[in-house]
């Protein structure tokens, strides 16, 4: 079946703008994760959903970042008042449950000018 998909693949925006990044997990996967990968770094955990609820959002860097998963499938990561430091690849992953193998999407490359 189809793997995790993310849209858009690239997003260029201006400082101060609002952006939304979308993740479509593998069908049936109950757990969904967001990571941020800056240049030269490994993925950094942002938030984890089990079903519709955010089970752990401790990795969100500040209140400009917010994520939702209203129907327990597709998730949207929302970034308000973007800053140049937000430029990174945003990765989404999904799994059957918390302790199972995570399957990653291709990522969205966000560039804030």
């Amino acid at each position: 079946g189809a793997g995790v998909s993310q849209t858009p693949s690239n997003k260029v925006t201006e400082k101060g703008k609002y952006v939304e990044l979308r993740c479509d997990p593998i069908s049936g996967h109950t757990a969904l994760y967001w990571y941020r990968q800056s240049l030269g770094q490994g993925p950094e955990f942002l938030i984890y959903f089990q079903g519709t609820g955010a089970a752990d959002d401790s990795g969100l860097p500040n209140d400009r970042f917010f994520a939702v998963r209203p129907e327990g499938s597709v998730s949207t990561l929302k970034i308000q008042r973007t800053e140049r430091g937000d430029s990174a690849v945003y990765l989404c992953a999904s799994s059957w449950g918390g302790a199972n193998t995570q399957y990653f999407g291709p990522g969205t490359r966000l560039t804030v000018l």
Partner: protein
Amino acid sequence: AQRVTQPEKLLSVFKGAPVELKCNYSYSGSPELFWYVQYSRQRLQLLLRHISRESIKGFTADLNKGETSFHLKKPFAQEEDSAMYYCALTGDDYQKVTFGTGTKLQVIP
């Protein structure tokens, strides 16, 4: 706090030579350790996890709790092993994966 350290940004080896990608971790409890791999123009994928005790594509990794290490090894490198390798850890909060900074493995023909 949990931390993963990969000291080498780049490791170059000749085809057929042994490979060892180093990984050290810091965690006060009982961690679960993983190696993830990202081949060129492909997405990040799990290579192996220590609880499975598997050999995947000829790679093995042994968890050494005394040295807090989880080095990835392969006796004979192949060109197709060239990729970015990330060591990762989960702790008691097993959903939260902490990644190292990655090591780029370059296998020279």
